[in-house]
């Protein structure tokens, strides 16, 4: 049985918008946004009001120099750490008890203790072995705060990166290895051409977070007399007692970290475009 209407309904106007009530959430949200906007406007007003060309001319080059040192330090230690993390990750996955035990201990130590304690242990602590280090001709390296920071950061990030790498490699299914074997590829070829590309997609986000953590963590070198961005900030503050020195550092750090986050998001979206539906 079919029923067909002879006449159609006359066109109806769209229903009226439901008036949104001023709920508690909406009031809180507006209040908090007002706070942030006020704080932001106040900050800009203050920084503009305190704008002093002598101050900028004096400190901007130093800040930029500090920024360069921060980025160099993080860049080198991330790359060296990556190189070191590869054997560590394989040792950790090895069936040899001694090798995996060593890697486990290494990772546990560097992830379980504060980076600042590791830095102090190397910078101040290795001074206890000055005679021994001089005997093997390594004292010139550990005498310098910059080298010690680089050394500590490299060892530290290697531990974190080894865990990232291990997690990523283990996330690739065993069948991928077997497929490589079936095609007659060597283990190395399989790893390089089949496993690693898939693992890198999984590892990308944690790697990005690790770089951001290192940039933030590198601020502690300021305490062992390296004049990175934080070190220059502290020096500027100790001379001027002007709080805007810290605000400028905050602006610098936020800009780097946010830029990095956006770039990494772009890279991830590009690399995973075959996974999007």
């Amino acid at each position, binding site marked *: 049985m079919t029923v067909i209407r002879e006449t159609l309904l006359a066109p109806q106007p769209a229903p009226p918008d439901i008036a949104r009530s001023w*709920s508690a*959430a*909406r009031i*809180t*949200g*507006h209040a*908090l*946004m007002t*706070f*942030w906007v006020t704080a932001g406007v106040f900050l800009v007003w203050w920084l503009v009001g305190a704008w002093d060309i002598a101050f900028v001319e004096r400190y901007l080059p130093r800040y930029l120099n500090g920024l360069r040192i921060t980025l160099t330090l993080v860049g080198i230690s991330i790359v060296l750490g990556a190189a070191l993390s590869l054997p560590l990750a394989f040792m950790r996955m090895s069936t040899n008890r001694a090798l995996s035990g060593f890697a486990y201990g290494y990772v*546990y*130590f560097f992830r*379980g*203790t*504060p*980076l*600042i*304690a*590791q830095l*102090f*242990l190397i910078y*101040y*602590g*290795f*001074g*206890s*072995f000055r005679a021994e280090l001089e005997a093997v001709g390594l004292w010139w390296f550990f005498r310098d705060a910059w080298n010690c920071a680089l050394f500590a950061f490299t060892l530290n990030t290697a531990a974190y990166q080894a865990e990232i790498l291990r997690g990523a490699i283990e996330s690739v299914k065993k069948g991928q290895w077997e497929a490589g074997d079936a095609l007659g590829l060597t283990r190395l070829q399989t790893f390089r051409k089949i496993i690693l590309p898939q693992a890198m997609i999984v590892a990308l986000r944690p790697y990005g977070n690790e770089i951001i953590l290192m*940039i*933030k*963590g*590198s*601020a*502690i070198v*300021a*305490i062992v007399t390296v004049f990175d961005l*934080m070190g220059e*900030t*502290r020096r500027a*503050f100790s001379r001027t007692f002007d*709080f805007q020195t*810290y*605000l400028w*550092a*905050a602006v610098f*750090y*936020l800009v780097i*970290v*946010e830029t990095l986050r956006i770039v990494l998001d772009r890279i991830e979206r590009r690399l995973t475009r075959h996974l999007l539906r």
Partner: protein
Amino acid sequence: MDALGYLAFGDTGWSDEIARGFVVTTTLALATLPIGLLMGFFLALAKKSEEETLRLAADVYTTIFRGLPELLTIFMVYFGLQIAIRQASIALGFEQGIEINAFIAGMIALAFVFSSYASEVFLSAFRAIPAGQYEAGYALGLTRWQTMRTIIAPQLIRIALPGLGNLWLILLKDTALISVIGLSDIMRQAGIAARVTKEAFLFFSVACLLYLVLAILSSFVFARIERAAKRAEVGA
């Protein structure tokens, strides 16, 4: 004096000083934890709210405190509070400013950092709970608060626990940074001992060891909490 002598308790050794630092470190972390958890929870509620301004406000907070180095946050809170209090006391007509306590400043700074990370953990835990759970609560006639407390929260805690465990370990390590504004924690006490005795390697090794002890203790406690949280799970 040999290493054992330096590590003795009492007037000659440094163990009692370092033990006091150990207590300060643990107290600071334990005092920050509830504040950070509470702030993180409310931030997560704000982030999953339907109200756009509330979400945006919470996102601004997270962006700031996750983007700034912890050390910078600590300095900004410490010096910023000092300046603010001085200005306020001058405005109110007091002659002298109040010296701000490193412990309080450290607690505030670490709570900012911890809560911004915790909010993300809570948010992803909220997203893992299907809407049907809320609807079931409302269908039973429970209020929003009752639903949250009796149905959502127990599941939320279970899902969020591993993430919060990691954040706790990060918090423990971040307390070491408070030593730079003068808190007598493990790092500072070890540093003093190292400077006086010239045995830097020994004392900083002890400091590292103590942080490892804290990490190991925490993992034991967390295993117990996790077991307690999972006791209702079928087939666990």
